[in-house]
C-alpha cells in the first residue's frame, strides 16, 4: 500500500514537473482567433468589471456576480457577453493544452490562467477566492 502511495506521489510530481514545461504563450491560428475574439469583447466587458457587475472567477471563467449594477434593459446583453466569454475561455484552455500536445493539461492550464487573470485584474475589479468575492 505504501509503495502504491509512493508511486502515486512520484507520478504527481512528474506530472507537475512536466506541466511546468508547458508553454502558455504558444500560438496557433485557432488560439490567435480565440484571443482576438476575446480582445474585441474586452472593451464591452471592461465597464462591467469596473462596476462590479462582472467578476473574475476562481475557475478561470467570468461571472455575473451583481446584475443590479447594470441597467435592467442591458442585463440580458451582459448575460450574453458572459456566456460568450466563458465559451471562448474554455476553448482557449483546451486549445493551449492541445497545442502543447497534452490535452490532459487543460485543467492545469485553466487554473494557471485563473490565477493570471486575477493577478492582472485592475484595482477595483471583483475577484473570487474560496467561493468569496472581494474587491481588488
Amino acid at each position, binding site marked *: 500500500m505504501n509503495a502504491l502511495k509512493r508511486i502515486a506521489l512520484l507520478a504527481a510530481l512528474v506530472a507537475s514537473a512536466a506541466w511546468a514545461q508547458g508553454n502558455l504563450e*504558444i*500560438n*496557433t*491560428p*485557432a488560439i*490567435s*482567433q*480565440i484571443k482576438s475574439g476575446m480582445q474585441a469583447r474586452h472593451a464591452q466587458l471592461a465597464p462591467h468589471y469596473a462596476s462590479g457587475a462582472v467578476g473574475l472567477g476562481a475557475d478561470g471563467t467570468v461571472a*455575473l456576480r*451583481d*446584475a*443590479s*449594477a*447594470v441597467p*435592467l*434593459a442591458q*442585463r*440580458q*446583453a451582459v*448575460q*450574453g457577453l458572459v*456566456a*460568450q466569454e466563458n*465559451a*471562448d475561455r*474554455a*476553448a482557449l484552455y*483546451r*486549445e493551449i493544452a492541445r*497545442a502543447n500536445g497534452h490535452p490532459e493539461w487543460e485543467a492545469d492550464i485553466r487554473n494557471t490562467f485563473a490565477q493570471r487573470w486575477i493577478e492582472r485584474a485592475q484595482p477595483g475589479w471583483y475577484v473570487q477566492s474560496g467561493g468569496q468575492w472581494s474587491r481588488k
Partner: protein
Amino acid sequence: MCSLPERLRGVVLALTLAASAASQASLDLSFDRLQAPALTLEQVSVSLQSLDRGPARLRIAQARIAGRDLSDLRLDCAEFSLHPEMRCRGGVLRAHGHSPWQLDFSLTGAQRTLKARVQPPGSPPIDIEGALAGAHPHLRLNTRAADLVRLVALDPVLQKAVAAYTPAGRVDIDAQLSDFGAGRSMRIAARLDLQDARFSSADGLRAAEGLALGIEIRARADGARWNGELSADWHAGELLWDAVYLKGGGTALASRFALDSGQLTLSDGALDLAEVGRLSFFADWGRSAAGAPALRSARIDGQAFDLEALNGRFIAPLSAVHGWPALALSGRADMTLSVDAQGPETARLQLHGVALADAAGRWSLDRVDADLPWQREQPTAARAAVAGAHFGRIPLGPFELRAVLSPDRVSMEPVRIPVLDAGLRLNQLEFVQDDGRWRGDLSFDLEPVSMPALSEALGLPRMAGSFAASVPGVRWRDGVLALDGQMLIRVFDGYVAATGLKLVEPFGATPRVLADLQMRYIDLEALTDTVKFGRVTGRLDGDVTGLELLRWRPVAFDARIRSSEGDYPRVISQRAVQNITALGGPGAAAAIQRSFLGFFERFGYRRIGLSCVLRDGVCDMDGLDHKGGGFVLIEGGGVPALSVVGYNRRVDWPELLDRLSRVTGATPVVR
C-alpha cells in the same frame, strides 16, 4: 357561511344594544367571550363616560380576526356619542406589537350607514363607506398611493413569500363588497392601480422597474364557489425574469375564473402581447393527493403570431443569453398546446410564409409553409414545404419534407432537394431518443452537380467537371457528426475522396472538422487554367491525412502532392514556374537563372512533388528529393528542361496563404 362584515355588524349591534339599556350615565360592560365565524374576542370591556358625547374606551385582551391573532387590542375615542348616531372622533386603535392607527367612524340610521377613515402610521388614509343593513348592504374601501411594502406586511405569509424580491411601490385601491349577509350572493369589485412598482432578487436577474399595472377583479359568490373575471393591463415599466426581458405597453391579460375549495379554473383567457399577437388560454388546477395545487389541464392557442416581433422580443434575446447563433425570422405562425396532469399532451405549430435565416447570412429557408403536429400517445405526420433556400452561396430549389413525429423518434421520408442543376437525395434521416440523448442517422446522395454552375455560384473561377457524393451513413452522436464511407467529388477529370469525415460540435463555439482526403489524376491544365496560375499540363495525385479544421480553418494536416503515374504530356509555362518559385519564398529562386528563363515560354518536366506538414501555424515543406541543401519541387525532363529547388523549409502558414492569393489573384477558399 357568514361573511366578515356580517360578523362585525353582530358585534357592533351587541355593543349598541348593551349600551342602550342604560341612559345618560357612565357605563361599563364586559364580556368573557364574543364569538362569530372567523371572529373570536376574549375579555372584552367597554367603558363610556357619557352616551351623548365623551371619551370611550374598548379593551379586548385577545382577538382572533380572520385567522390573525391580536392581543391587548384597545380603541380609545376622544369623543364618542350614541345619539343621534354612533360616532367616534379622534379614535386611536392600538394592538400589541403594532403602531397605533387613527380611526374615525360613524354609523347612522336603519341601514346602518358606515363612514370610517382609518390611517395606519405613515400611510395615506383608507376611507370605508357603505351600508351594513338594508336590501343592498355594501362597503366600499378606497385608498390612494398606499405603500406596497406596508400592504404586503399586513399578511405575514405573503410578506415571507415575497421577501426575497424586496417589492416596493404605490398602489391605489378601490374595492367594493356588496350583497353580503345571510341568503345573499356576495359580490366583489376591485380595481388596483400599481405605480412605480419594482422588485429585485438578490442577484438582480429577476427584477422589475417603473411598473405601472392596472388590475380589475369582479366576482360573485355562489355558495362556496366564486365566479368572476379578472383583467390586468401592463401600461409601462420593464421586467427581467432570468433570460426574458419585457417592456410594458400593450401587454394585457383577461380571463374568467371560477374558484371552489382549492379548485381554480381560468376560462376564455386572453393574453395580448404588443405587436406579437394574442394567446387564448384555458387552465384548470385542482389539488394533488398531497394537497398541493396541481395543474389538471390547460390549453393555449395562438393565431397568426407575428414571428418577427416574437423573435425580437423573446427568441433573439434568449439566444443571445445562451450564446446561440442569432436568427432572422418573419412570417406568421399558429400554435396550440394542450397539457394534462401528465404534462404536454398535444401540440401543433403551423407556419405560414415563414422566412428563417441565420442572422449572419450563412443559410436561409425562404417561404416555409409547415404543419407540425405532435401527440404524446401516438405518432403524427408532419410536413413542411420550402419554396427556396440557400446554404452559403448555393441556392436550393423548392422541396417538401414529410416526417413522422413521436416523442422519442423523428423519421423523415426520402426527399430530393434541388441543388443548382442537380439534386440532393436524402434517403434516410432519423433522430431517435435513447437514454435521454438524441442520436441521428442520415444517408444521402448528391447527384452530379456541374462544376461550372457550382463554381459560378460560389464566386470562384469557372471550373470544369462535376461534383457528386454518395454517403451511405452519417451518424450524429453526442455532438459529433461522423461520416461512414467516402464522399467523392469528381473534379478536373479526376476525383477528390474524403474519408473519416467528422464534424465535432458543428454548432458550438469551436466547431472542428477532421478528415482524410485523397486526390487522384487531377488534370493540371484544367486546374491551372481555372485558378490563373500559369499553365501546367499533366496529372496530379495528392493525399491529405489528419486534416483538422478549427472554426473552419486548417490547423493541422500532412499533405503531399505529386505527379500521377502514367504516360501523359508534361509541360509547364514560364509564368507557372515563376509562381511556384514565388510560393517557395525568396530562397526558392536560387536555382533558376532568369536570363536563361527569358528565352523560353514552356519547359518540359519529369515530376512535380511537394509536401507540407502543418503544425502550430507553420508549414514544414519538402519536395521530391534533396539537392544541395534544398528540396526539389520540379524535376526537369525533356528539352528545354527545368528544375525548381526550394530552400525555405519552414513557412508561416498565413504567409503561404498570402503568397498563394497574390499569385492566383484570388482569395483561396481555405482562408
